[in-house]
């Protein structure tokens, strides 16, 4: 029984990272209409920046997290202005190629920076902090990620429903042409949405640098999983992302613990699910 509870806890906590990354990607795909293959790389940059702030300036990640996210938000706006703007209306293939190119560039910069270090780790004092409740191990930093994820979901929900910017984003996502008609400054909305989108990825990256480490190649995995969760949740469905992340996190955890060779499967399970959903219910399985 203990094992079962531990599996649940593991899955729930793991879903926190997925939630944050996917929320970001949902903004890019839904509002801006960009299939951002480089999404995970912005996460990776966040992780690297967090490590740089810690090792060079001695600033704890939990403090630098806001600065780093902001920096990446600005990086996102810059990237949008320089390149993505031009492929907004062109074929998806162009977007995929462009964002793929951006991901390669970011990866290579990271490789140059990390040099011979395969893995960049930092050791803030709370890194290994965990609680043991009735034999169930609960990691402090993973719990923190989960709580931050929930806060972000709630905040995003509020913004989308109660602010001009938020409503503009929803309008752009639901009917881009209609948005032009009512006078929404679409370019400004795209800029903001894309910036926030990758800023969220960067935030997740900072948390990852505490839980795990930074390497130039951690990004891709998260990009793929975020796409999977968006498909499962359905476009524009915030609540769906929450539930989908939870479910997939728990499935991943259960497979890894109970099924022999399960960890190999757990990556595949994400894509198996996308396939099934695409075939059966392409609009996502969660009601808005």
């Amino acid at each position: 029984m203990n094992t079962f509870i531990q599996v649940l806890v593991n899955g729930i906590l793991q879903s926190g990272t997925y939630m944050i990354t996917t929320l970001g990607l949902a903004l890019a795909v839904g509002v801006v209409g960009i299939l951002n293959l480089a999404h995970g790389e912005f996460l990776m940059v966040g992780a690297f920046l967090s490590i740089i702030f810690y090792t060079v300036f001695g600033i704890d990640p939990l403090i630098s997290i806001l600065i780093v996210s902001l920096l990446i938000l600005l990086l996102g706006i810059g990237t949008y202005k320089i390149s993505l703007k031009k492929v907004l209306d062109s074929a998806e293939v162009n977007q995929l190629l462009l964002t793929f190119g951006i991901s390669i560039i970011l990866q290579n910069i990271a490789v140059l920076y990390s040099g011979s270090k395969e893995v960049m780790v930092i050791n803030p004092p709370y890194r290994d902090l965990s609680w043991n409740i009735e034999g169930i191990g609960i990691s402090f930093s993973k719990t923190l990620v989960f709580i931050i994820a929930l806060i972000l979901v709630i905040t995003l929900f509020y913004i989308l429903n109660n602010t001009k910017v938020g409503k503009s984003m929803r309008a752009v996502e639901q009917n881009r042409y209609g948005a032009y008609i009512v006078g929404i400054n679409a370019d400004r909305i795209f800029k903001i949405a894309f910036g926030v989108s990758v800023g969220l990825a960067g935030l997740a990256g900072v948390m990852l640098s505490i839980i795990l480490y930074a390497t130039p190649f951690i990004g891709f995995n998260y990009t793929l999983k975020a796409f999977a969760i968006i498909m499962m949740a359905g476009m524009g469905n915030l609540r769906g992302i929450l539930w989908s992340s939870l479910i997939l996190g728990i499935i991943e955890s259960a497979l890894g613990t109970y099924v022999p060779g399960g960890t190999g499967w757990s990556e595949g399970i994400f894509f198996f699910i996308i396939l099934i959903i695409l075939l059966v219910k392409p609009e996502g399985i969660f009601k808005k």
Partner: protein
Amino acid sequence: MKKFLQIILTIIVVSMFVSCGKGNKIVMGALIPLSGPGAAVGIGTKEGMDLAVEEINASGGIYGKKIEIIYEDDGNNPKQAIAKVEKLLGKDEVKYLIGGMASGVTIGIADTVKNYKPIMAWIGAASRFAEEKYADADWFFHYHPWEYYNIQSTADFFASTGAKTIAILFEDSAFGSGGSALAIPMFEAKGFKIVVKESFKSGSPNFTPLLTKVKAANPDILYVICYAADVIPLMNAVKELDVNPKLIYPVPPAWPAEFASMPISEYVAQLNFWTPDFPYEETKKFNEKFQKKYGKMPVSYWQPLGYVNIISLAEAIKAVEAELQKEAGKKYSDEEYKQKVIQALANQNLDTPFGKLTFKPSQKIKYQGFTNWLTTQFRKGKLEIVFPTEYKTADLVYPAPKWKDRQN
């Protein structure tokens, strides 16, 4: 007309220089992982090799001939490796193939290498399947111990602790699967019960599900075959879930540099081919040279191994060149030269940071270099040798204290 002649003349002169240049260099082709999951190893190897090359060339090279290494990155990927080795042997025409790390790569390039039959002074590969591939190659010199040597040493060590149960986690490529397939029968033969046997994908950072399973099985020893990138997430999850085996024994080919200084490293044991505290004179000398050139102490055995790779091969070539020096104008054909170098290597008896290096037959190949392994344990950021007891620098701590009983 004039311009045309000038161009022709330039081409002739330049090619004369180039071919002259060739004669004055000893070119070696090194195939190592410089990117991907094995990069820590490859970069360490290169550091050792560069140190050796600098040392030899600074003192005039081998009878005036300087050593030059062409490095190619195999990315720990057999397909990529085949392309690179074809370039080294076919296009660059190197006579000496050095380096190596992964068994998968070593097996993958075998057919290509056999087309050219260079002198292969190889510091990589532990899998017996790699050994089989080169069983018929009398130009193949293997420095790294085969995995059956490691596993024997490990099994002996485990038996000395009094442990009864082992949980094995292994990464799912040739390295991990091959290693576990060999280890399990050897452990069982010594009377151990294998309570968990699970594979995982290296570089995939979520170990919590697997370790939840391990915790439920409550093994005496946790044995993990993984790569450097897996060590920290593995140990993080162990601590987070409060998994308390009596001993944790990961065996990555290299360790992340910062692991030793992290509190979670305490009491973690591993098989070691070499530590900077090894009791040999050559170890001390190597440490000093390394520190002088790079401003840091060596941390993995790949650095001295890369160094020895060059020194050993250079010694053999030197012996042949010495012969040539004695008789002015004497020349060997390429094939004769090669056979002479092979002979020199076969007869080599060299002091190295690992102890004495000689080449003797192993289970399947003719020229096997190193065979010995030690068990070390992390203690307060330092590696202490704990087994075999005649080499020990500290007593083994077994069982390791539970996480909640530790100071940090």
